[in-house]
C-alpha cells in the first residue's frame, strides 16, 4: 500500500479537471435517472422487502448456499468451494489447465478483481481478455476500476482512443462510432477463439441453482455461452432464496444503479449444454468464494453483506464525487468500499477509509437494501479509536481523553475558550483568521476560521 494519505491522493484527483468533469456529469446522470426510475415504484416497501430477503439469506447462509450448490450440481455444474483468494485462483487455473485452455474471456466481475484472478491466470501463461467495454479499456490501460459500474468513467474518449492506438499499433480517431466498431471487431475475435469464459454472478438463486447475470452489452452471453468451458465465480453472500425474492431485487438493482427499469440483458444460467441443446458450454464450473466474508457474520458489519453492488451510495456521496475511485486505493470504493475494505482486510491498514465521509447520510438514504452505512463507518471508527492496539496516534487518543474530562468542568471549558480567543486574536485579519497554527491550520488550508466572540452567550445570559 502506498504511504500517501487519503487526502493527499484526493488532491491530485481534485486537480484533475477532466476527471472532475467526468465525475460530475456521470454521477449526476445516474442520480437523475435513478430518481425517475424509483419514482415509478413503491420504493420504501421494496427496499424493506429487499432488506428482509438479504437478511434471510445471510442469517441462514449455510443452508441456502448448500441448496444453491446442490441444485447447481444437479443441473450439471461442478461446484468448488474456495476459502480465500489464493484458493479461488488456484482452482480457476487448475480448471483451465485440465481443459488445456490458453485463452479466456471474462464478463465484468468485482469478485475476480478483488482476488486478482487475471494476474493468477496470466502467471500460468493463460491470456485473459475483459469483454465489458469499460473493463476492457482499463485492462488495456493497466488501471483499476474507478467505479463499480463505470470502471473507465475517468477516461475521456480521446484518452480511450490513445489506449486503443497503443494496443493496436494503429492510428485511432476519437469518434465514438469508429471506436465502438473497433472494440466490437476486436472483442468478437476474442469471443470466438476463447476456450474458457469466466463471469461473476449478480445473484445465486438457491431454489434452482441458477446463476443470474445482468449486463447492458450482451458480452456475458458470449462469455458464458460460446467457449467450451464456463466458470462462474460467486461470492458466498450473493445467494438469494427464491425466484420471488429475485423479482424484488431485479426491480431495485438496475433502477438504483443506472436508473434503468431492467438491464438490456438478464442471463439466467442453469448449467452446461444439455443433450439436444444447440449451444452452451460443454462444462460448467462454479467457484463459491468466501475470502473473508464469513468473518463478518455475527458482527455489526454483517449487514454490509446485503450489498448488491448497485453503486447508488457512490453516486450520491459528496466525497466520492470529488475524489473518484483511485483515491480509496481499494477494490471497493465509495461508502460501501470504506466499510467493506477495512471490515474484511483490517483496520491496521485501512483505518483511514472510515473517515473518508462527512457523515452526511446520503448513502443510507440511497441504499436499496437499507445498509446503515454511516453507522458502520462510525463503528469502524470506534473500533480503531478504542481498539488495543489502536492504529490511531497517541496524541489524538490523549487529546480526546482530556477533552472528555475537561468538557465536563464548566470552569475549564470557560478558561479554554478564553485562552483560545486570546491565542487566535493575533492571527485575525478583519474579524477572520486566514491562517491559524496547527491543528487549526488544517481548517485554514481550505477556508478562513472565525474569531471567537468577545462575549460568549453564557456571559450575555447574565444580563438577559
Amino acid at each position: 500500500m502506498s504511504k500517501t494519505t487519503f487526502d493527499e491522493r484526493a488532491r491530485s484527483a481534485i486537480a484533475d479537471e477532466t476527471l472532475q468533469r467526468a465525475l460530475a456529469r456521470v454521477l449526476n446522470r445516474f442520480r437523475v435517472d435513478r430518481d425517475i426510475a424509483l419514482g415509478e415504484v413503491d420504493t420504501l416497501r421494496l427496499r424493506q422487502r429487499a432488506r428482509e430477503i438479504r437478511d434471510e439469506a445471510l442469517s441462514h447462509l449455510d443452508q441456502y448456499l448448500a441448496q444453491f450448490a446442490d441444485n447447481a450440481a444437479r443441473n450439471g455444474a461442478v461446484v468448488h468451494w474456495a476459502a480465500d483468494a489464493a484458493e479461488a485462483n488456484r482452482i480457476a487455473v487448475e480448471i483451465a489447465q485440465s481443459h488445456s485452455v490458453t485463452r479466456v474471456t471474462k464478463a465484468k466481475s468485482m469478485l475476480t478483481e478483488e482476488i486478482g484472478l487475471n494476474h493468477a491466470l496470466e502467471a500460468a501463461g493463460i491470456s485473459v481478455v475483459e469483454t465489458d467495454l469499460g473493463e476492457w479499456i482499463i485492462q488495456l490501460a493497466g488501471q483499476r476500476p474507478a467505479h463499480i459500474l463505470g470502471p473507465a468513467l475517468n477516461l475521456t474518449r480521446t484518452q480511450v482512443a490513445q489506449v486503443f492506438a497503443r494496443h493496436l499499433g494503429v492510428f485511432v480517431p476519437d469518434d465514438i462510432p469508429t471506436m465502438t466498431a473497433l472494440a466490437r471487431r476486436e472483442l468478437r475475435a476474442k469471443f470466438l477463439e476463447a476456450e474458457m469464459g469466466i463471469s461473476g454472478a449478480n445473484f445465486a438463486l438457491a431454489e434452482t441453482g441458477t446463476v443470474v447475470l445482468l449486463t447492458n452489452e450482451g458480452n456475458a452471453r458470449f462469455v458464458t455461452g460460446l467457449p467450451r468451458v464456463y466458470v462462474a465465480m460467486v461470492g458466498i453472500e450473493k445467494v438469494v432464496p427464491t425466484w420471488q425474492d429475485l423479482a424484488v431485487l431485479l426491480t431495485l438493482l438496475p433502477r438504483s444503479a443506472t436508473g434503468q427499469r431492467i438491464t438490456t440483458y438478464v442471463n439466467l444460467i442453469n448449467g452446461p449444454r444439455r443433450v439436444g441443446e444447440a449451444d452452451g458450454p460443454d462444462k460448467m464450473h462454479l467457484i463459491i468464494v468466501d475470502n473473508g466474508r464469513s468473518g463478518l457474520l455475527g458482527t455489526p458489519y454483517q449487514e454490509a453483506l446485503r450489498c448488491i453492488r448497485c453503486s447508488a451510495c457512490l453516486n450520491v456521496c459528496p466525497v466520492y464525487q470529488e475524489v473518484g475511485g483511485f483515491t480509496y486505493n481499494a477494490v471497493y470504493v465509495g461508502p460501501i468500499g470504506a466499510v467493506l475494505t477495512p471490515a474484511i482486510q483490517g483496520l491496521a491498514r485501512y483505518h483511514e477509509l472510515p473517515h473518508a465521509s462527512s457523515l452526511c447520510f446520503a448513502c443510507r438514504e440511497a441504499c436499496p437494501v437499507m445498509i446503515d452505512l454511516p453507522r458502520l463507518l462510525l463503528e469502524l471508527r470506534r473500533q480503531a479509536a478504542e481498539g488495543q492496539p489502536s492504529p490511531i496516534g497517541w496524541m489524538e487518543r490523549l487529546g480526546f481523553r482530556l477533552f472528555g474530562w475537561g468538557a465536563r468542568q464548566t470552569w475549564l471549558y470557560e478558561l479554554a475558550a478564553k485562552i483560545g480567543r486570546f491565542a487566535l486574536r493575533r492571527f485575525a485579519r478583519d474579524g477572520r483568521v486566514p491562517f491559524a497554527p496547527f491543528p487549526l491550520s488544517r481548517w485554514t488550508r481550505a477556508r478562513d476560521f472565525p474569531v471567537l466572540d468577545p462575549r460568549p452567550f453564557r456571559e450575555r445570559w447574565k444580563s438577559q
Partner: protein
Amino acid sequence: MIAETSRPHRVALFITCLGDLFYPQVGEATVRLLRRAGLTVGFPRRQTCCGQPAYNSGFHHVTRQLAEHFVNVFDNAEYIVTPFGSCAALVKNEYPHLFDDDPKLRERVEALGRRTYELTSFLVDVLGMDDFGATFAARATYHDGCHAYRGLGIYDAPRRLLAHVRGLDLFEMGSPVWCCGFGGTFSVRMPDTSGAILEEKIRRIQATGADVVVSTEFGCMMNIAGGLARRGLPLRVIHLASILAGDVR
C-alpha cells in the same frame, strides 16, 4: 398542532459550544423568539459540549461521559431547544446507542431525546408558529444541514418560516440538501476533500444569485462563511433565528 393543555410552558436553551463561542447573538435571538412565543426560557449554566467531535472520531466512551453530563444538566427540562440541528440529532439519534449496556439509563436518554428539538421544527411543528412578523429585504438561499434533513427529517419548517419574512425572496440552489463538506472533524482530517465539497456548495450558492445564505447549522455556517471569505465573495451567512428576531437588515 397540539392540544392547549400540553402546550409547552418552559424550555431550556441548549446553545451548543459553537453557538456559545462563535454565534452568541443567535442564542440571544433564539431566546427572544421563544419568549415571544410565550415561553419561559432557562439556560442551564453547566452545559458545555455534546461531544460530537469525539463521537464522530470513534471515541464513544468519551462521548458517553459527555452524554451523562448532558443528561445531568438537562434532565429536569420540560423541553430542550437548540438552534443547531446537528447537535439535536446527536442527542436524539446517537446518544441512545451509547447506553446499550444500561437499559435504565438508555430509557432516560431516549426520553430526553424525545424532548429535544431543533429550533425551527420546535417553532413550526410543536408550537404551530410560522410567522414572527420579521422583515428582511434580501435575495436569499437556504442551506439544509445533513443531520437536520436526513437525521431529523426537517425540510419544510425553515422554508415555512422564511416564506413569512417580508421582503425576503428565496432562491433555492440545486439540491440544497447536498453536503457543504463540514462534517465536524472531517473538515480538519481531510481538509482538501472537505474543501472540494465546499467549493461545489459555493458554486451552487453563487448560481442562485443570492446575496444571503440562510442556515440553522453553526458548523455549516462556519464552513460556508469561511469559504466565501477566502474567495473574497461578499455573500453573508445568517442564521434563520437572527432573521426571525429582526436582528439583521
